[in-house]
């Protein structure tokens, strides 16, 4: 399965970026093949508004079926939900650790946004 992780750098040992829409980059991880594809998010970081919506569009078009991140606001949450993406918030540690925890079933899915818009 393809999973998107927000990351501060495009590598396995990078910390999970707590921001979704304005994350440094999105890593699209193939959990079976253990491969990683990085999508730079400079356009989202610099967006005047709607960074979360733009990020949700990017993630949904990457083919990812789940998202691991720190926090997710209401507009991003509704866009991701409409795209059928499973959302995990409150994820910390490195990208590799986050994927391991997902594989072990240690992460709980989010049923609602966990922050207001314009967080951080």
């Amino acid at each position, binding site marked *: 399965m393809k999973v998107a992780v927000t990351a501060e750098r495009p590598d396995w040992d990078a910390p999970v970026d707590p921001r979704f829409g304005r994350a440094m980059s999105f890593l699209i991880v193939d959990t079976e093949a253990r491969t990683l594809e990085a999508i730079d998010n400079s356009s989202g970081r610099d967006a005047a508004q*709607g960074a979360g919506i733009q990020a949700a569009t990017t993630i949904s078009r990457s083919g990812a079926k789940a998202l691991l991140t720190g926090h997710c606001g209401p507009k991003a949450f509704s866009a991701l939900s409409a*795209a059928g993406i499973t959302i995990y918030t409150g994820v910390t540690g490195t990208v590799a650790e986050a994927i391991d925890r997902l594989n072990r079933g240690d992460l709980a899915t989010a049923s609602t946004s966990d922050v207001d818009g314009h967080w951080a």
Partner: protein
Amino acid sequence: MIVAIASGKGGTGKTTVATSLALAAGCQVRLLDCDVEEPNCHLFLDAPPGEEEIVCLPVPVVDPDRCTACGVCGEVCQFNAIAALPDCALVFPTLCHGCGACTRLCPEDAIHESRRPLGTVSTARVGTVELITGRLTIGEALSPPVVRAVRGRGDGSGTVIVDAPPGTGCPVMASLHGVDVAILVTEPTPFGLHDLTLAVQAVRQLDIPFGVVINRAGCGDDRVQEYCRTEHIPILLEIPQERRIAEAYARGRPLIEAFPEWREPFVELLTNVAKLARTGARPPFARTATGGAQ
């Protein structure tokens, strides 16, 4: 002639200048309160609540039966107001600026526009002044469409005075669009000077002739005067820092009604800005109520 009263810094005296200028005109004028987030000219003119018209923004509605999820609407939206997802397009109306690109460029003709109310424009008549007030609905963030609706009432003939919002952002640009001349109101403080320089850059980019009014003169230092001299910006009027002026303001009384000796300087201010509007040239002298030419 359309005169805009603007400033970088807030609270420098735009409304004081705008209302007294409107009352000094001595003929029919239109006063446009474009500070739609907190309009206050009506408080000084004691204007009755006028007839209100609702200002709406056209926002897209996607027909899911026609949408093929091609993604064009999301690509053309400069405001991230549409999430073009793999199976559908999701609209976020509060982010939409109403540009209409998605509606026009949708290849499936799957988007039509609905109208989202943003605020109101009302008109009231007080003596020789026709006051047009814009009001952004509380909780809304997008003020330029309401500002444009107010400005739209100020075209054509006669004297129009535009009370602009503070700052140099989009609502200010919407207020200044198409005016003939601008008065930048500032105060002689470091903040006043800093924000004046931003306002000067804005009006210069818009190529609008302008001059400066210094309010609360004497409360700070003379760096604003020095700056205006260096930049060849005319100082059109100085209103001194006086407790009695502040008291009249706090009671909602227009300056020239509370202190009739200020009528003449405002009549002259209007004459001088009319000259600026015609020629773009610099009037030679600043005046005060008592001092005459300096």
